[in-house]
């Protein structure tokens, strides 16, 4: 949270150059009553996260509709940070998003943005709490394209397509890619719901990417159903539980 008199460090994120220029003009007007500095500008969600990994940012002005990683997904990754910046969404029109934002009490500014409203939103970031991950999840209408791993204050994105399987271990979920393992602080049940098209549950604690299934193998010793799933590339064998035995039939 910002202390009064501090200079707020702001990141502008929008894929359209004129929209960024407009925000710069408006921020200039706000400067007198709200001390601020523009840290950088980003043209998509990935650039936003890059800047956040590099610089200290207090407020992100985040356009919802951007190419590659959109504002909604970027916000969900940001919300997992230890000290996340405040997010002010900006959008021209998106009836779905706006309705969802109202329902989940998420603030946004409508383009064209007025200087007074921008100032109001900036001032609110001093007092109000940060938007929560849960609210963002509830407002999002499509799954993320990446999972975000938070390591030493940095955000690392793992593309969904690279993930072979997800395995729950105590507090964390292990994310396995062909190269390495990551830990994310999410619930396996939520991940299963969000990415129902991508993963299939083979065990109480394990989701396997449908495209990563190389085959099945009888493996009576380690698994209660007598089957194990073989992972493409790494050749790892993960037990299939009795309750998920139908998966074996479905894929064979």
């Amino acid at each position, binding site marked *: 949270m910002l202390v009064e008199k501090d200079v707020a460090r702001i990141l502008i994120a929008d894929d359209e*150059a004129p*929209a960024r*220029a*407009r925000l710069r003009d408006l921020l200039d007007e706000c400067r007198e009553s709200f001390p601020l500095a523009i840290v950088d500008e980003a043209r998509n969600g990935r650039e936003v996260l890059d800047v956040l990994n590099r610089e200290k940012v207090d407020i992100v002005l985040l356009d919802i*509709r951007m*190419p590659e990683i959109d504002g909604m997904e970027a916000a969900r990754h940001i919300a997992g940070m230890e000290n996340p910046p405040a997010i002010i969404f900006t959008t021209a*029109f998106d009836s779905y998003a706006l309705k969802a934002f109202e329902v989940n009490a998420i603030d946004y500014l409508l*383009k064209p943005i007025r200087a007074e409203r921008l100032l109001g939103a900036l001032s609110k970031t001093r007092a109000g709490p940060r938007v929560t991950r849960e609210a963002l999840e509830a407002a999002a209408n499509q799954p993320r394209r990446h999972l975000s791993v938070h390591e030493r204050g940095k955000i690392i994105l793992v593309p969904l397509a690279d993930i072979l399987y997800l395995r729950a271990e105590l507090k964390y979920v292990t994310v396995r890619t062909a190269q390495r393992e990551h830990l994310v602080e999410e619930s396996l049940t939520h991940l299963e719901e969000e990415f129902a098209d991508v993963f299939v549950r083979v065990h109480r604690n394990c989701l396997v990417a449908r495209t990563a299934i190389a085959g099945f193998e009888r493996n009576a010793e380690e698994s209660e159903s007598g089957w194990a799933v073989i992972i493409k590339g790494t050749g790892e064998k993960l037990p299939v539980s009795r309750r998920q035995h139908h998966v074996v039939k479905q894929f064979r």
Partner: protein
Amino acid sequence: MAKWGTVASINQTGAAIRLPNFCNLGVMLRSLLAVNVLLVAGAMIRAPSIEGLWYEFLLFAALGEPLLILSLVALCIARPWLHAMGYLGAIALLALFELGVTWVFFHFTPDLALFEHHPMSYSQVAFLVLFVTAVLLAYFDLRARALAPAIAEARIQALQARIRPHFLYNSINAVLSLIRSEPRRAERALEDLADLFRVLMADNRTLAPVSKEVELAKQYLALESLRLGERLRVTWRTETMPGDALVPPLILQPLVENAVYHGIEPSEAGGEIEIDVALHAKQLVMELKNPFPGGGRHSSGNRMAIVNIRERLQLHFDAEASMRSEVKDGTYKVTIRLPYITEAPA
């Protein structure tokens, strides 16, 4: 026919509204289908058994089909005069014509096998011919009346096919950003925006020249390139375009808007939109290509615009216009074909 809900057709004492346009492919196909169904029905009544049905049908068809085709050709040629006569006059003339042609067939064709075992007199055949003609005319009249509200609706539909609010607000935002730094470009952009909305607010029931449609799409793209800069690249191929060809208004712009929204905006690097308008074998062919980044995000809005355009094409041209869209090798392609006409049909 009422599908041209123009001022001109209202002045024509209603004949144009109630008589079908016999030159239209859809009307011809419907006539062929209806007459053949009636012939089958007639054959069923006359056939002694189910095996004899095909034989009886052939007998009827031998008389019926030439009569029908000759009538359709004659009606297409005589259309302007028929329309000038008013509905009742036209019907009376049509009936006389059918009776005359039937008489000629009846007397000058070599003994039709039709009359071998159940001989039919001229008056019986004439009655059947008049009956079929009346049924068809009643059908087309009803159809025209049923479609009349749809034509009024076409204007509303055109409005619904309108520019996305997303575009309007983003454009205004872009213009606002230019006012301080580049007032000239801001002026230009506002002029384009005004022109676009003039067309959107206009009465869009009548057909418009394709050159105007192209102009409109270009103004729209100029506004979009303001926002998207180098991400938006456009290639126009309109060298062989007949500028006077008439098309339903707002047929191109929504497609171009779709191309920008689905093909260019979701991509970091942007892409190229290619638009071809040309004349091929008396058909106006419009072809639009844009990159298809996939992912299938925002697809419902796209379908709305496509359905809307398809409906309006059908209202104006029935079976003579077509619209196809396909995705191939990461490219989305829409092709519209419509008859090349330069004046609104009566």
